[in-house]
């Protein structure tokens, strides 16, 4: 059964005009999300993943500017909407959770009040109903004693609790799309496990799609249905999660997976196969494929031209002139 297309990002370009030059944070990113799908957007610092999510929410501030592309959400281009219309969408149809919950939670209001406000802003219900719904939500996200916690302030809660509260606020209006921007990065491993379970659980219950942004490949392997690997503002590999992990075609993805210490490897205390060099400075991007200075397979053409994102094996897009591991797709 073909799932309905929820979000289509086409050739999105967001540039930052700083005093040191132009930073092409997002430079031609395209991907598609279906209803209920979890897409993992993964990359290191400077890859543009956070800016992508901010662009979708139209929250990019000066010196940044969305300079091109389309963001088609439920059939309509978000880039053509007015600020007024966007405000109706944010929080109700598209919700976002961040790495640091304190940026989303106002320290001078109780979390109960804040969640209620989110509900009342977008839904036409009475205060009583909103309060009831809020307590239900707090319970749903696993906050014990929800009636008591309703009156607590953010600083009175632990990191894990705050993150749950933020999730409660985000799902209060049953959004179609949840954007999770490094939401578990700052959490301890055992708390992170809790939150990921919660997110998976909620996703099943509510049927929302999740744009899961992270730098941690392991989290993506766990959470995502499809994966888009980004590098310096562009997607370099895009396919379902198994294909990307088990049969990576882009040298960057492949190199990255090789360089992560595995819990199962026998070769401890030996040098890891590391990717050489470093992520280029945004002010001095290499010509041609941005990855070429670090790529063991780079040839002349890689240093001159930027490859296109092309289907190399069925439903597996790669941006490379010399994709690796091109054999039968693992079914």
């Amino acid at each position, binding site marked *: 059964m073909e799932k309905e297309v929820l979000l289509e990002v086409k050739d999105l370009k967001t540039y930052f005009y700083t005093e040191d030059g132009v930073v092409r944070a997002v430079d031609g990113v395209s991907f598609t999300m279906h209803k209920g799908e979890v897409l993992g957007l993964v990359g290191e610092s400077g890859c543009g993943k956070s800016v992508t999510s901010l662009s979708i929410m139209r929250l990019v501030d000066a010196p940044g500017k969305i300079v091109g592309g389309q963001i088609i959400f439920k059939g309509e281009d978000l880039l053509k909407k007015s600020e007024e219309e966007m405000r109706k969408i944010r929080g109700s149809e598209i919700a976002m959770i961040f790495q640091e919950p304190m940026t989303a939670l106002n320290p001078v209001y109780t979390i109960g009040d804040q969640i209620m406000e989110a509900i009342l802003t977008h839904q036409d219900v009475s205060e009583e109903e909103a309060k009831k719904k809020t307590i239900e939500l707090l319970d749903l996200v696993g906050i014990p004693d929800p009636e008591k916690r309703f009156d607590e302030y953010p600083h009175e809660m632990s990191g894990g609790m705050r993150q749950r509260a933020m999730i409660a606020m985000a799902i209060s209006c049953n959004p179609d799309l949840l954007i999770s921007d490094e939401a578990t990065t700052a959490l301890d491993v055992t708390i992170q496990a809790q939150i990921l379970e919660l997110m998976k659980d909620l996703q099943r219950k509510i049927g929302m799609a999740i744009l899961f942004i992270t730098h941690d490949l392991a989290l993506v392997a766990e959470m995502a249905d499809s994966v888009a690997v980004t590098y310096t503002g562009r997607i370099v590999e895009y396919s379902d999660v198994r294909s990307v992990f088990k049969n990576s075609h882009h040298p960057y993805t492949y190199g990255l997976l090789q360089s992560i210490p595995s819990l199962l490897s026998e070769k401890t205390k030996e040098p890891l196969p590391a990717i050489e*060099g470093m992520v280029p400075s945004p002010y*001095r991007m290499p010509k041609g494929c941005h990855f070429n200075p670090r790529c063991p397979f780079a040839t002349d053409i890689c240093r001159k031209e930027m490859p296109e994102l092309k289907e190399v094996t069925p439903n597996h897009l790669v941006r490379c002139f010399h994709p690796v591991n091109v054999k039968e797709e693992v079914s």
Partner: protein
Amino acid sequence: MANEDYVEGGMNTSESYSYWRKVFQRLKKHKIAMVSLWVLVVIILMAVFAKPLSFGNNPYSYIKSVPWASRPELAPPGPGHPLGLDSMGRDAWSRLLYGGRVSLAVGFICSIVGAVVGLFFGLISGYFGGITDMLIMRFTDFMLSLPVLPLMIVLSAVIKGSLWTIIFIISIFSWMGVARLVRGEVLSLKEQEFTEAARAIGETPGRIMWIHLLPNSLAPVIVASTLAISGNIIYEATLSFLGLGIRQPTPSWGNMLNGAQTFMLTAPWLMWWPGLAIFVTTLAFNFLGDGLRDALDPRLYR
């Protein structure tokens, strides 16, 4: 490393630039600050080259007579005396130039003394904390609570007013703001890991303060000191205007105003020029200070 030549080992720029050069670059974008900087350079040069610029005149001689006026005293501007003569028959132009030396000297020296003393107290207070901090801060608070101008007036009435006593008197009250600023910077710098790294190497507190804390605390000190120059010039002008600061016959912009008061209606130009000089100089230092504050913005730390 692979193809490192292209990305130059990941360096952000092809040539090295130090913090100060970057600061100057940012300052250059601040038009008003740059204009002020040039104005100040001109004013300073004029004060330095007061002798040749006086066209043979000097601030002390009493001119016997001038062709275009009946008496030398309060003679209006004319050839050889672009600003005329003051009430004692002295060339006003050269007095203005030499007076500039006094005002600028006071402004700079008091500011520098204030910065040095403030840095000293702020560093010690911030780094050692505890009783030391408490004592120094209470002392600073005490000094800040004193009425500055009345005390300066009293002190300069009591101590004979030469240039150096005036500098001394104004300096006494110039260090407190800097001390507080530096202490604040040091408190936050102390928590940064490079300070811990210095301790891990076994550095003495003195070295840590000199090499690590001081250079990183300079930004607010520079801004505060630049802005303070204006204040110091005004203090000197006020004291001299009240007849307490620089005593005659040494010219200063302040005592020139004092001398010109009585003749406001008959020879207004004697008041305009020193007044304008004070106004322009202090305004320029203020704009420069603002520009520096923007240029030194901590966003430069990356």
